[in-house]
């Protein structure tokens, strides 16, 4: 706790553009010597922090030990251990799962971009004014309502299984492409709502200022409203991307060999569930950096807002 405090204070000083010598430790060079009162306070805080760390460590050990004992002493544990945590099958599954994961990563990248673009288009369509755009507005609203309500798994089945059944000329039957399409359809509806919330969170006075300068509605949106809206919505957008990352595993229902499907194949052959655990852990490992990044961006934005103060 004390560490984060020190960090933010130092960064605050950096942000003020303080470039005089000796700022690396954040101490101004004005001959100040800390008073006895301050030293006593700091001693007390250090002691308290040490105590807190000790309590946290102890409670973690106790909790872990309890969990371990409960699981290991469960009547079915030896059997479960063999079926879910077999080192042999884990070694066999890992390379195949990783190979499949490459598909998930590619899907994430391509769908991520498509989702952001489509989501933005829909969000802007929903905020357009004027009678000409009425059908567009209605369409965009219907789209978000529909795809936010439709369970992703059903959407995937309709697109991945239904579209090939139509036997349309020139339309792909590739389960990866179709699965990606389904993911994009659902996620762009979510992302559109995130963008729209951002657009509506920008105070009307910003638009008024832009219009008073002679900017058209569209120019005000493009140069003044959208840049602020997008910046404000970065944390929820990243959150949706994390979610998309793990949902790319669902394209396996159409037969695309991604990480989940790769595990599935081994499970089907061996009747041992360890590959599922491996695939699950690999997904978790993949999302953790993204989640941490989201936290970092959010914290940074909160701090900047707190410093900006007046608005």
């Amino acid at each position: 706790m004390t560490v984060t405090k020190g960090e933010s204070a130092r960064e605050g000083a950096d942000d003020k553009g303080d470039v005089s010598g000796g700022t690396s430790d954040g101490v101004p060079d004005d001959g100040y010597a800390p008073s006895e009162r301050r030293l006593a306070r700091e001693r007390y805080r250090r002691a308290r922090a040490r105590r807190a760390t000790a309590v946290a460590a102890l409670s973690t050990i106790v909790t872990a030990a309890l969990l371990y004992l409960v699981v290991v002493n469960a009547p079915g544990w030896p059997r479960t251990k063999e079926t879910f945590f077999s080192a042999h099958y884990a070694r066999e599954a890992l390379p195949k799962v990783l190979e499949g994961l490459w598909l998930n990563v590619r899907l994430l990248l391509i769908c991520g971009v498509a989702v952001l673009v489509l989501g933005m288009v829909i969000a802007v369509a929903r905020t357009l004014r004027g009678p000409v755009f009425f059908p567009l507005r209605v369409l965009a609203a219907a789209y978000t309502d529909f795809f936010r309500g439709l369970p992703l798994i059903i959407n995937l089945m309709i697109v991945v299984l239904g579209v090939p059944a139509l036997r349309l000329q020139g339309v792909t039957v590739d389960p990866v492409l179709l699965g990606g399409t389904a993911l994009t359809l659902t996620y762009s509806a979510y992302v559109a709502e995130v963008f729209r919330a951002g657009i509506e969170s920008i105070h009307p006075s910003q638009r008024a200022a832009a219009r008073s300068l002679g900017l058209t509605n569209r120019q005000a949106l493009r140069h003044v409203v959208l840049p602020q809206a997008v910046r404000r919505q970065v944390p929820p957008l990243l959150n949706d991307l994390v979610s998309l990352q793990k949902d790319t595993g669902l394209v396996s229902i159409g037969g695309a060999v991604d990480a989940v499907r790769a595990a599935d194949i081994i499970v089907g052959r061996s009747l041992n569930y360890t590959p599922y655990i491996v695939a699950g852990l690999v997904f978790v490992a993949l999302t953790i950096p993204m989640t941490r990044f989201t936290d970092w961006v959010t914290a940074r934005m909160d701090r900047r807002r707190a410093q900006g103060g007046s608005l």
Partner: protein
Amino acid sequence: MSTRENTPGNTPVSSTPVLRMESVRKTFGGSVVLRDVALEVAPHTVTALIGASGSGKSTLLRCANLLEDIDDGAIWLDGEEITDPRVDQDAVRRRIGVVFQAYNLFPHMTVLDNITLAPRRVHGVSRTEAEERARELLERLGLGGKADAYPDRLSGGQQQRVAIVRALAVRPRLLLLDEITAALDPELVGEVLEVVRGLKDEGMTMVLATHEMGFARDVADQVCFLDGGVVLERGTAEQVFGDPQQERTRRFLRRIVEAGRL
């Protein structure tokens, strides 16, 4: 302090008024904010709108800039009726600069980008030319070193001066100032009013809504007292502040004096 004795705005002037309002009515839901407003602003003059909070000063300015649609009446800019629905509102707004009470700077842009946005995007001025003029204006208003700062790093007075530069950068025909010192700490009011005084000396036509009576008396060629949705009293600063004709004006000014604002 301007020593010029300008022609009072209420005496007939030969040239077309920059801004003219006639029988303007504006309601919000059930409340009538402007009942029947008439106003004339001659070129190169300063008009001060005074009146209690909620008397419609800001609404009048927003209507003049077409940020609000009026219910009835008409408004002319340089003799052209701008309340005609066939008029291109964006083109009208390009000729009017507005400075808001809360500055309304764009927080995601540097000071320089705030100022050059409209010249570049609306008026098609090249980036170099727009930035050159912006820097020149900033320099003149004592903000030379702030071009690359973001608005939230500036004091209120500096932000408001940037907002004035932003409004001036498009060379407006008319400048509307809406309570531009109301959000400022008292010690920052002076620097902003000094800028307005300088603009007056350069001949900028301005309409300002203000609570700074001392400043209004000092700088305005014409003072309009708004009350009950009409311009109840209008005249030179000496007339309105020195010898108000209407009982309500007298009462308003008495309250101001008692509050130590005049």
